């Protein structure tokens, strides 16, 4: 990769290979992004949408209005999104890693069960959201029935009605959806570890914990970093799950940047503000993306 442009013919072919990707990116990614950026700097709302002559550039005032004020829902939703993302990834990763270790062993029915675990990831997110909404319902929800049956709680819990538990319930649903993604990538990572490394560590008398922390984890570090950064990006822009389960409520306690941007654009017709908050989401993800690309490049340099 580091040997650049050995001959001009070779680099010419390289450019040819890149052209379709560049065109694709420009049409399907670049154009909407630039349009969105322009929209966020204008004052397009319900009053000016039909009157292009009244659509003026207003600089950063949409961003300023969204970020300022004691009741800034955007700041709250960024905070909520961070909680949602970190809470989800932490558990998704640990459970996914545990399952990956389990399924990298050979046992009867291994591939069958590994396939079954994928169901939560193959299910459309809206369906999963509805399932969890029913499960967490105050009256008649299976989680309350279960906990009451075990005498852990006496009164039904109002899972989706209290700000903190509504956030917890959304995170639980998202963890369930995300586990297979973590598991699959980590299993792929585990298969890259040569068996002889384990053999020699066994000969040297390493116990299970030493094997895990001194061999397995360091050797799949690139896979772990990919899982975490990709997981961050996916979780940060989750929309449908929360929209179905709570619509951002109660009282904005589960409002994410994505649901807020949708609400602004399609419910309140504040198109420019909606675009501005979508750009805020994009900027945060861009930073994570740059980090991810750097990581990939480092990996390739190792090769």
């Amino acid at each position, binding site marked *: 990769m580091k040997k650049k442009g050995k001959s001009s013919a070779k680099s010419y072919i390289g450019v040819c290979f890149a052209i379709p990707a560049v065109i694709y990116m420009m049409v399907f990614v670049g154009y909407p992004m630039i349009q969105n950026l322009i929209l966020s700097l204008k004052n397009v709302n*319900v009053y000016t949408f039909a009157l292009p002559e009244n659509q003026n550039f207003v600089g950063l005032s949409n961003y300023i209005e969204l970020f300022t004020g004691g009741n800034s829902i955007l700041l709250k939703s960024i905070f909520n999104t961070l909680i949602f993302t970190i809470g989800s990834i932490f558990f998704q990763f640990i459970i996914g890693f545990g399952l990956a270790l389990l399924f990298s062993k050979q046992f009867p029915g291994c591939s069958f069960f590994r396939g079954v675990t994928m169901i939560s990831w*193959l299910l459309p997110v809206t369906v999963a959201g509805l399932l969890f909404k029913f499960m967490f319902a105050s009256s008649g929800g299976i989680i309350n029935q279960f906990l009451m049956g075990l005498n852990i709680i006496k009164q039904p819990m*109002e899972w989706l009605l*209290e700000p903190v538990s509504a956030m917890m319930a959304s995170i639980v649903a998202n963890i369930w959806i995300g586990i297979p993604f973590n598991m699959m990538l980590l299993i*792929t990572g585990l298969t890259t570890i040569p068996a002889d490394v384990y053999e020699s560590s066994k000969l040297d008398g390493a116990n299970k914990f030493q094997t895990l922390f001194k061999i397995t984890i360091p050797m799949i570090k690139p*896979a772990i970093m990919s899982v975490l950064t*990709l997981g961050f990006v996916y979780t940060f822009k989750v929309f*449908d799950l929360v929209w179905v389960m709570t619509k951002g409520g*109660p009282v904005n306690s589960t409002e994410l940047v994505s649901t807020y941007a949708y609400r602004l654009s399609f*419910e309140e017709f504040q198109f420019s503000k909606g675009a501005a908050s979508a750009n805020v989401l994009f900027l945060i993800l861009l930073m994570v993306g740059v980090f991810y690309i750097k990581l990939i490049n480092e990996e390739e340099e190792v090769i």
Partner: protein
Amino acid sequence: MKKKSLLTTALAVLMASTMLAGCGGGSGSTGQETSATAAANEDTDNGDAKDTVAAGGKKEVVIWDYFETDAQKEMMETLIRDFNASQDEYVASHVYVPFTDYEKQLTLGIASGELPDLVILDGCSMASFIALGLFGDISDVDIKWDEYLEGPMESTMMDGKHYGIPFATNCTALYYNKDLFDAAGVDYPDENTTWEQFREMAKTLTKDGVYGFGNAATNTDEGTFQCLQWIYTAGGSYTDIVSGADALTLMQEMIAEGSWTKEVVNWTQSDVNNNFIAGNLAMQQNGPWQIAGIEANAPDLSYGVTVLPKFDENSSRATSILGGENMGVVKKDDMNGATAFLQYYDQTEVMVKAMKTYGSFPPKTAAAQDSYWTDDPIQKAFIQQLETSIPRGPSPSWPSYSAAIQQGIQETMTSAKTPQQAAEDTQKAVDAIQ
């Protein structure tokens, strides 16, 4: 080389998940289904922007609606069949678009041009879509404008111009379960019931898993529709929350007492009605469109309906919020087909026939005086309540007002803020809307 394969897998997973996400997002728009009322229009797309000429040289009129119940669908099918039979110039058909996606589809339609000729939509969102440029000015069309009820008519207009006509009108009133009242030895509520008496009733009736009262207070305009009337009845309005702060106090205190169930913050109007049918609620706030469902699912339920409780002895009848749909004519070069349909619906007898099936009231003063409604004690209560009902807004910024008000109500109901604090904060949010 193995690291490469890791990267490949990562990319493959990424691509697959993007596709999945795409499916999830798109499922709403594929939910549209054309209901071919006329045999001739099977070959046409739903909501085609062009004036399609159907077989036999008739011009097409495409109508979008979000009607879901059997009664609503039957009403629409009959109305369209009768219209098609009444003249030979146009062929009407309708397209169902799910309510949750409705306004998004309309907004996207304005941008893409994929629009029908006529749109049936919630009265409170009409002002926004007039401002967004969806509807055309039809003030010159021969329609008996002055026969309509003032509130619904106002919601179809802007700056003195007409963009459509009201289709159906309704409001919410107070349903009560007679058996539960009899068992508790409590007198039924009536038009003289005050908030204080209502609160006592609800308190007495709350026992053995039954809540005294419930309404819809979900985090959408459906919640605002039901909750805003309490603020008006207390003396406030959608721009003056502070004067209606007593309503927030009543909500918080009744929820604390357990007589107004806290679950309402996640309840839609159907949820409220289901709980009323199941006997979990002694009283509910709901609209006339639930009557058909109650009679079908719980024919033995003994219930009554009266106007909503008034503020105190000295105040007049409680205000309710107008609900119902409008028909708006989509702005096009040729709007004749759409206006022909409006003129057809403008006939009082057509309107009355449709509304009997639909479970709402015709938006004309005279039409609502049909004996079908005035002779029925339950329907009569709604007609009475309708007299003191006001529209939401009308304002193109209604969705922003609605979101701000409903946030204040949810903050009150979940005790996140004191009623005074919630009223002041909501007032600030409302004042900030342009």
